[in-house]
């Protein structure tokens, strides 16, 4: 059972199912008028009642100088609270459609042998915070949501729902960047939305937990992790992955043959904590 290929890819399969179903529900919302999910990742409605909005987009609109209707503010708050208190940066790995593009680029990179350390362009993981700050400055100066104008994420998602136009160019750019320039280049280094979620999801409850006693230091997890800096504790300490940069994709859990990594809740009742310890 444990070496079953499905079991070995359980989170990958789960993520694809979630990503694709969300996408299909949005597409059906436009084509057939289904009310389950309407709109797109910028702002949407569940069952025509519960609003959801991208808090980063709302922040840009706010910085650009607009007073917004309550609908979108409530929507942004719902999403913000969900990811920051519960889900962590799961948006990136479980919802964002660009994730499929960059994962594909990454897979190709590994399969074709394009991935060699010396061929990589070194970009700081902190670049995304610069881009994030810059997007707000530009939004303020230009009085328009700056990242929303060039975001390949919304271009792809909106494109799949409403028609792509030349949006392929932006998406293709991300693909090529991740394939030829840097491993996990877009999601792990540049994307300001990822940076935004990294900052706000620090307190979130769902976390990967490392058990150093079981770890055999094979480093499979570090090889597979798109944000490997968050796994500094491998083989050293039995702690949860507390960085907001962890995208909760579960890849490290899948590849670990020693059951040293698992999802856990950070705020467990005290009793269980004692049992664990």
């Amino acid at each position, binding site marked *: 059972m444990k070496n079953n290929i499905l079991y070995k890819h359980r989170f990958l399969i789960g993520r694809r199912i979630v990503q694709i179903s969300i996408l299909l529900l949005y597409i059906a919302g436009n084509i057939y008028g289904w009310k389950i999910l309407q709109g797109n990742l910028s702002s949407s409605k569940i069952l025509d009642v519960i609003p959801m909005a991208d808090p980063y987009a709302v922040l840009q609109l706010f910085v650009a100088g607009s007073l917004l209707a309550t609908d*979108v503010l409530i929507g942004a708050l719902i999403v913000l609270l969900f990811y920051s208190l519960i889900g962590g940066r799961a948006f990136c790995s479980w919802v964002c459609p660009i994730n499929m593009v960059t994962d594909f680029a990454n897979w190709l990179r590994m399969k074709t042998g394009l991935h060699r350390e010396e061929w990589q362009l070194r970009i700081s993981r902190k670049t995304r915070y610069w881009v994030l700050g810059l997007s707000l400055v530009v939004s303020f100066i230009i009085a328009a949501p700056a990242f929303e104008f060039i975001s390949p994420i919304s271009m792809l998602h909106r494109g799949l729902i409403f028609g792509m136009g030349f949006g392929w160019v932006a998406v293709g750019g991300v693909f090529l960047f991740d394939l030829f320039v840097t491993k996990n280049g877009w999601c792990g280094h540049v994307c300001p939305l990822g940076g935004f979620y990294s900052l706000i999801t620090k307190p979130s409850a769902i976390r990967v937990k490392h058990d150093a006693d079981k770890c055999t230091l094979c480093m499979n997890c570090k090889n597979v992790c798109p944000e490997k800096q968050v796994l500094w504790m491998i083989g050293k300490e039995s702690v949860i992955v507390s960085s907001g940069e962890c995208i909760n994709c579960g890849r490290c859990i899948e590849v670990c043959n020693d059951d040293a990594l698992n999802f856990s809740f950070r705020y467990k009742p005290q009793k269980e904590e004692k049992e664990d310890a």
Partner: protein
Amino acid sequence: MAESSKVDKGRRKFFIQILQGLGLAALGGSIWGGYVAEAKHDEIVLRPPGAVPEEEFIRKCIKCGLCVEACKNRENNPDETKQTATLRLAAPGDHRPKEEGKYIYPKEVPVGTPYFVPREIPCYMCEDIPCVPPCPTGALDPELVSSVKDGKKVLDINKARMGVAVVDAENCIAYWGLQCDACYRACPLIDEAIKLELRRNPRTGRHAFLLPVVYPDVCTGCGLCELACVTEKPAIFVLPRNIALGRVGKHYVKGWEKQDEQRLKGSKGIQKTITPKSEKSPEEYLNVEDLLDEE
């Protein structure tokens, strides 16, 4: 002495990195800002009913497409397959016309924002205005398309001001003296937004001109007239109001409107002008002054 001249390389590196970072940010920021400023600046684009003024619209629209979905899936969509709709969400490259010269497209629609091209599909002015209420941000403001009826606030599509129809009298065949009233009949506010003006045709001496005249106070800019126009390239077309209409300014007071002169009350800017009178008597003026000098 030797100690004080020792260079702290870490410190130097720190400042260089800060400067590099700032330089990159400034470069990136100006390219990015320039692109966005360019992309958001299009005056020719037509927005859904209830849209706030363009500058504010760009600031508020979150590009979710809920208005587009509502427009597409409305019950009275003339396209029963519901595959097309008036509103569309701008994709990159949308400004490229499918057939050269046949359509007026915005030069560049800010990506992701809703717009429509009346020549393809005009706004059918649904009475329940399905596109406006779903807007989550207030970029489409129900207040702008509401009126008070029997003490209740109701949506009123006739208050929409998406644009205004403009007649090109040179190429309108009604102005040639041919009988055509296609736009007039297509107008949902027939005899209000477009009226026919009758004029004698001096060329034939008999037939009358039936000239379509647009009344911008009433016209909603739906574009049904533009779609109906029979000429190869429509001679009546919708333009954004800020492009098609002039502006008088507030300093004109209409003496023929009852309340308008009230505006002068308490005004500090207007006062009686007093020209100093000449102290000379008229006689003195006529006799002493050299009137011929001025020639």
